[in-house]
């Protein structure tokens, strides 16, 4: 398909052409497997939100839903529909456009991260100022920052090329950016956000060609960072101990994870059947959110959970595959970055639900309840679909 464009490549001659839809129509079609996997997972995710949330929505212990059992579901379904639209819209913008706005996205991210710290704009929930209330919905600037880092780092790598590894001219920019973002996240504070953003940043540098020895050093410093976090933040320590033996404090720190393990464990091979989770009756906290996968395991069993994980794995593999076959370096980097972000969220979320890593608040993409987060995820996947249009070796 790309060859078709070569003759009349307005893209090369006109700066404006980068932004026209007309031009993008001429690009190839989106990658069907990737789009289908996304839509299937999104559909299952919305259904699971209904199943997982209706008990809490009905009993309404926090006076949020007014006892309407479909409260969360209806909202999630609306956002999912919008999300599909967002994904297809995003898939239509040419990759040059994304490359062009990379720095702006980064700056906006940082601005939002600063804004959220302002009392009155940022909402304080459970001692952390992570949310900006837009009136009709809320969103986390850290979600924007993730895509910001991916885009900006991809842009830097493409611009700097081999100078990436130069400490003064290249690496410093990455480090400073990550430093600023992480510092702002520390102020919120937002531990899981820091972990994901650091990981994304490192993966970007990894793809950008940073020598392996840096990662050894980085790994060590990361470990020491963990140590520092462990020493500085009491809640990190508490979570660590709760992870080691959640049953030691079943009604306190271990409560969430124990309830999650009960849910997953009682699912067995075939599960209790869709809609039949018992743990969702207010035993399991965050059952339609961070722990929605536990409800999946309880209702759909080992088979169902593995099926969904397989779909995620296929989506991720396809994402990487598309990135590897991207037409240009920026697309490849952004694609791999977004796919890694997706993979990391899925893997870490499931790892938390199964108590494979210490408990921290990481949502499951396409499943967890949360409107703006979902819209951003769909936008990210839309960017991958956009780059897939330029991939020639489809199928």
């Amino acid at each position, binding site marked *: 398909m790309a060859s078709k464009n070569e003759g009349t490549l307005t893209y090369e001659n006109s700066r404006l052409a980068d932004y026209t839809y007309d031009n993008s129509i001429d690009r190839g079609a989106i990658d069907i497997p990737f789009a289908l996997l996304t839509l299937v997972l999104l559909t299952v995710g919305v259904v699971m939100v209904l199943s997982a949330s209706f008990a809490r929505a009905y009993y309404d212990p926090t*006076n949020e839903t007014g006892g309407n059992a479909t409260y969360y579901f209806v909202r999630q379904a609306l956002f999912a529909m919008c999300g599909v639209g967002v994904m297809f819209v995003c898939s239509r913008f040419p990759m040059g456009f994304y490359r062009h706005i990379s720095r702006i996205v980064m700056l906006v991210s940082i601005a939002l991260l600063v804004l959220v710290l302002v009392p009155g704009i940022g909402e304080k929930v459970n001692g952390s100022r992570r949310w900006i209330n837009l009136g009709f919905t809320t969103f986390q600037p850290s979600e924007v920052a993730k895509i910001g880092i991916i885009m900006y780092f991809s842009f830097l790598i493409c611009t700097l090329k081999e100078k990436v590894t130069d400490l003064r001219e290249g690496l410093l920019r990455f480090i400073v950016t990550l430093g600023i973002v992480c510092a702002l996240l520390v102020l919120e504070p937002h531990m899981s956000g820091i972990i994901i953003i650091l990981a994304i940043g490192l993966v970007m540098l990894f*793809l950008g060609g940073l020598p392996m020895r840096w990662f050894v050093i980085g790994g060590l410093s990361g470990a020491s960072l963990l140590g520092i976090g462990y020493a500085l933040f009491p809640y990190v320590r508490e979570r660590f101990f709760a992870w080691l033996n959640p049953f030691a404090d079943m009604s306190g720190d271990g409560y969430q994870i124990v309830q999650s393990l009960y849910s*997953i464990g*009682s699912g067995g091979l075939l599960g209790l059947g869709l809609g039949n989770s018992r*743990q969702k009756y207010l*035993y399991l906290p965050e059952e339609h959110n961070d722990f929605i996968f536990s409800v999946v*395991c309880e209702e759909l069993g080992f088979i169902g959970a593995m099926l969904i994980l397989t779909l995620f*794995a296929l989506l991720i593999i396809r994402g990487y595959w598309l990135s590897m076959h991207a037409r240009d*370096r920026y697309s490849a980097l952004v694609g791999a970055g977004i796919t890694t972000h997706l993979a990391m969220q899925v893997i870490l979320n499931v790892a938390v639900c199964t108590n494979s890593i210490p408990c921290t608040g990481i949502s499951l993409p396409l499943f967890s309840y949360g409107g703006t987060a979902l819209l951003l995820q769909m936008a990210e996947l839309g960017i991958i679909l956009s780059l897939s249009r330029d991939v020639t070796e489809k199928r």
Partner: protein
Amino acid sequence: MFNRRRDKEPVTPNRMMLRRTLFLMIVCGIVAFFALGARLFQLQIVDHDMYETAAVEQQLRQTNVPAQRGTIYDRNMNILAMSASVSNIYISPAEIAMYDEDPVAIASGLANILGVDYATIFEKTTHTDSWYSTVARKVEDDLADRVREFKENGYYDKDGKQHSYNGIKIEEASKRYYPYGTLASHVLGFVGADDHGLAGLEYSYDEQLSGIDGRIVRATNAYGTDMMFTDFEDYYDAVDGQSIVTTIDETVQFYLEKHLDEAVVDYELQDGACGIVMDVNTGAILGMASVGDFDPNDYLAISPEAQQRVDTAMVATDEERSALLAEERNLQWRNKALTETYEPGSVFKIITLAAGLESGAIDTNSTFYCGGSLQVLGRTDPLNCWNTAGHGNETLTEAAMYSCNVAFTLIGQKVGAERFYQYARAFGLFDRTGVDLPGEASSLWWSEDVFFNKANLSQLAAASFGQTFTVTPMQLITAVSAVANGGYLMEPYVVQKILDADGTVVSQREPIVVRQVISEKTSETCCLILEQVVSGKNSTGKNAYVAGYRVAGKTGTSEDVTYEIEHGEKKYIASFLGFAPANDPQVAALVLCENPDHGASGGAMGAPTVGKILTDVLPYLGVQPQYGEGEEGIVDQRVPRVLGKTPEEARELMESAGFVVKSVKGSGAAVTAQLPAANAKVASGSEVIIYCGEEPPTEPVEMRDLIGLSYEIAKIRAGWDGLYVRGEGVMMNSNSILTVSQSIEPGTMVAPGTVVTVTLSDSSWGATART
């Protein structure tokens, strides 16, 4: 910054980038998912059962359906203890907060209905992490209904919608009632807050009475309310407790307690009194009581005197005061007739007598000489008889009548230490009786080594008249019952039948013979000798005499040696054990008067109390009286109702009832009034007046002093004023039996025809004499 030149020739990903992306694909797309899959396999397949069990355990909630506790009946199916359903009211502060209910409204509403302090309830509502905080326990049904109504009416939200209070909870429970209050409290015991017995029959038969609580098992959400869309519910029916029918007779128990209470007042008993009434032939306990007692309906409450002792005690801390309170409670809960041992004193001579006769060491013709004291091998000082002047030559019967210590020491020596020991053991005095009540104490005896010491007979000597060892009152009455009933040691018991909830007999207790200790012949002999202790001239047990009944028995006065060692003060127990009729014993009664203020005497305190008990109990139990010579005059009779009869008929009725018609006033054809009133019980042979038309006199007369007279003289003197007497105490015609008190004080102005009760007692028996 936006370098268009670079855009013109798009830079494709280099090989390193592709390699690294592939690496990420393998790690994030394949390896990680295999790891997660393995973890899920572990949780969902390998450990599935463990997690499922734990999850189900928290998801299922059990609601207890309390079983109705069984009823305790007396032998005539009067209800002594029963359960009724009540409610426990509690609040769930967490739910009050969760549903945003008004704690002020809830607290004031509950305070109004239940009379619980508002501030207390409100304080409870502030503990919003709690799901269960009790407001009132064992609330009666009508109050619980009002609480239920208050809960349902609830409140109106700002939209005018009605909500019931989720934070108020009503829980089914049951409450124990004891309709007779303090009656038989020590036998019945009481139940604690958890509805399980803590003392008495409630404790020993707790398993049978309790039944099995039912359960409702439901799947619930984390807040304990029903899970939606699941109708999982399992019922396990409650099995109501069994009821028990006791051998206790409410009437006998009432008489026993009444006379014990009187004894406590009359003899100023510092430590109260206790007593047992037993069916001699079966071992069934008809009555058992200790004074002071308690009300099992409110078993924590102590008597006002005890409360005052606690309040005024000089203690430093509240803990010490609580300890004192606990001590007073324990004191009132003690079933002294069973849980405490004492030196039986001379009452034990019954056993020595039986052992002597059965072993052949003595016979009815044996005679003894009492010089007032006796030198006993192993004792430095001679053993004194209570009558230091000595009883002189005496027959066996006389030795018993006068309760001669010297004679019984000689009997003990004739029996010998080993055989004496054997008989004591055979009479069950070494073992617990096995009565089905909790807390039975163990007797305390010399060891064989000491007791069998041939060089020191002092232990045997003292034991012969009931000293230097201790037994429980229960052991003693059981042993003496064996002496009385033909020699059969019975296992005493309180519960004769167990009924299920429908009233069907589940099990029935037959009397258990432990062993035959003495022959029927020996038993008979003992009964006749012991009858003389009560009816013989100048004998020690005279005050237990009951007109019309052949009462046998033995007095006893003993000192609490342990108490003297510990406190340096002397403390006595005056006791009497009587049974009747002597020729065919049916009922035995043992009374212990503990620590009289002055002059302890089994004959002066124990004997009259037992006498009064038997006077009431024997006719009630249907034991036919058999009057001996000269006894008729002492029996009080009911005045027949003659109103409306002709004067002739009236005279005939009166005379046939044993009264003398003094005069017929007026000339009417029918009786218009009578003195004394119909159905009054007065001395037989009293002079009655019949009015036919004429008005009876109404002018008050002065009560004269009737104390220190024989019953006959008292009757005549009262008659001088147109008054009547009835007797109490030793209802016997004898020059030595005189009135000791009268129910109406001398000098009081009373209406003509008033009946005054006089108490008769054996004046020849010194109040301070010890037996």
